[in-house]
């Protein structure tokens, strides 16, 4: 997982969930963060999509169970797209 991607994902998650970045560790999941409800999930994923200029399928959104997994999916998308 790319460190810079993880940092950006944590920031986007923190801002959409109104937490500090420290409160959103890579291991954070929807169970450990009660504010990460389904509305927040959509908001966060759309912010991530726009930030990295990628698009996720609904199936992929369901796989985003932790911050780490979000970052990994972003990484996969960026790798599949190739350098710009």
């Amino acid at each position, binding site marked *: 997982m790319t460190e810079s991607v993880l940092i950006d994902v944590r*920031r*986007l998650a*923190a*801002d*959409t969930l*109104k937490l500090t970045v420290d409160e959103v560790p890579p291991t954070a999941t929807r169970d450990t963060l009660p504010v990460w409800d389904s*509305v927040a999930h*959509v*908001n966060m994923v*759309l*912010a*991530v*999509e*726009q*930030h990295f200029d990628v*698009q996720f*399928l*609904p199936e992929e*959104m369901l796989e985003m169970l932790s911050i780490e997994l979000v970052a990994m999916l972003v990484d996969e998308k960026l790798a599949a797209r190739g350098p710009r």
Partner: protein
Amino acid sequence: MTREQVDGLIAAGEAPAAAAGMARLFAAAPTAGSAAFVVSRFEQIAPALTLAPLRIAILRSFTIEPLVAALRARCYLAGLDATIQLGDYNLFAQELLDPASRLYAFRPDVVILAALTRDFAPTLWSGTGDQHGEAAASATRLLQWLGAFRRISEASVIVQAFEQPPFAAAGILDGRSDDGQRKAIQHLNDAVLGAARESRSTYVLDYDALVSRHGRLAWADQHKDLAMRVPIRPEAYGWLADEYMRFVHPLTGRVCKAIAIDLDNTLWGGVVGEEGSSGIKLGAEYPGNAFTALQHHLKSLAARGILLTLCSKNNPDEAVAVLRDHPDMVLRPDDFSAVRCNWDDKAANLRSLAAELNIGLDSFAFLDDNPVERDWVRSQLPEVTVIDLPADPVLYVDALRRVPVFERLSLSAEDRARTDQYRAERLRAEVESSSASVAEFLRSLDMTATIEALAPSTLPRVAQLTQKTNQFNATTRRYSEEQLSRFAAEEGAIVRTIRVGDRYGDSGLVGVLMARVTGGRCEIDTLLLSCRVIGRGVETLMLADIAAMARTLGASTLVGRFVPTAKNAPASDVFSRHGFAAAADRADDTWWALDLQSAVIAPPDFIKVTNPT
């Protein structure tokens, strides 16, 4: 401006500066992520700011939750603390018709009706069945709801008109039939528009035009639509929020009544003081037609009642001559309600424009291609709406169209005649400048300079500068490359060049000073600056450099000469400002002398010289 800087300002208790920083950050990247950041930080600093409350209720047929942060961020940046209530999916009728509904309990200032065609009129969206009848029935239904709302609430209503599908159900046959799908949806929209014109505080947002502006296919996200009823892309939520702001601004009085416009490279291409009226780019051909398009757009703003004013660093006679005589000007002197063409700083000129027109600075927008001028105005007059023009003039008009402060909900006869009312009092300029804050601003530019002797590599540029520099040029002596190299080879000759950079980038070689030392006397033959760096202390640095150099070479007097021309007024006081005494005042020139044994010219402390010599 970065997130870290914003957080630093918040930690330091500087809420207004943090707010201004977030405006810059958001303008650079108006994404969902930036919006979330802006909202979370404004929630922290809101108590320390003067924000007007605004209650917005959105009745919707689709997932509009991602728009909430986007809209609240834009409101915060416009000085509004918005509370937003979302209705339940597709429960418009219940909420609008029941006086005891959640909608009315919320006591909204603004209600937005955001229904998609496919949800509100599914038959029209699918294109099956009696299209004409369905359009009429849908219109009747909507107008009944709006009528009910008006009887209960005084709030403003924004109704989204209905979008066309990307492909008509009948394909290319659609237009062949009297009962076509497109025609039916258009009929519904016409009915909504007609009703809105007839009723108070009811406005129509042309959702179809908005979607088509960005592209129907680029607007939609079909996967997320089918899986989770998120029908539009993240960018589109931002675009929709921008469109809402076009209504929010005039509804809350956050509009500009006047716009102060720069001339060179804004209203026309090039610098008239350098290239002359015939050299500027304007007219029917590229690239001049980009500037012509901007002028046409400004003229349409004037027709909306927005006052056009000029705020330009130029010789007034020259600028007015272009306005009056250039064959391709769309805007003429009569189109401007007030004019400031001088060499004073633009914040001072904006203050004096506002005083002359008797409108507040918060009603002023500022249009200038130069990012340094824009930042200066932002720093001095935060209440002015500074429009960020892109570097490419082709995109000027689009940039201006995106600004919501020129939107109007209605237009009166007074609005249309406003420019005429101000026409009488024009061409007057009395400005006080605050030199303390000028120095502070110059310091913030982080300027750097490199002063060097003439070199073979710089010879062509230096000769070119002597040939084309008209404004800041003490003697306006023209040199060819050959003449210049002969001058430099003479005994006692000095040719100094200066390159200047700042945090916006490198301006390149922008200044030249040529002098001769003979006996105890150093005489300045040429002192010129490109117009890009006038008023930034560069001439002080050059004079300090030559004074030190002349002293080293045994000169006891530094002599300057000013030869007035039609264009070089900006340089007229360069010697008197630096302690030179008037030595001779003759008909065609003035001579100035500085005693090098007693006088010292201090280099400005806000320019970092990278190769001290």
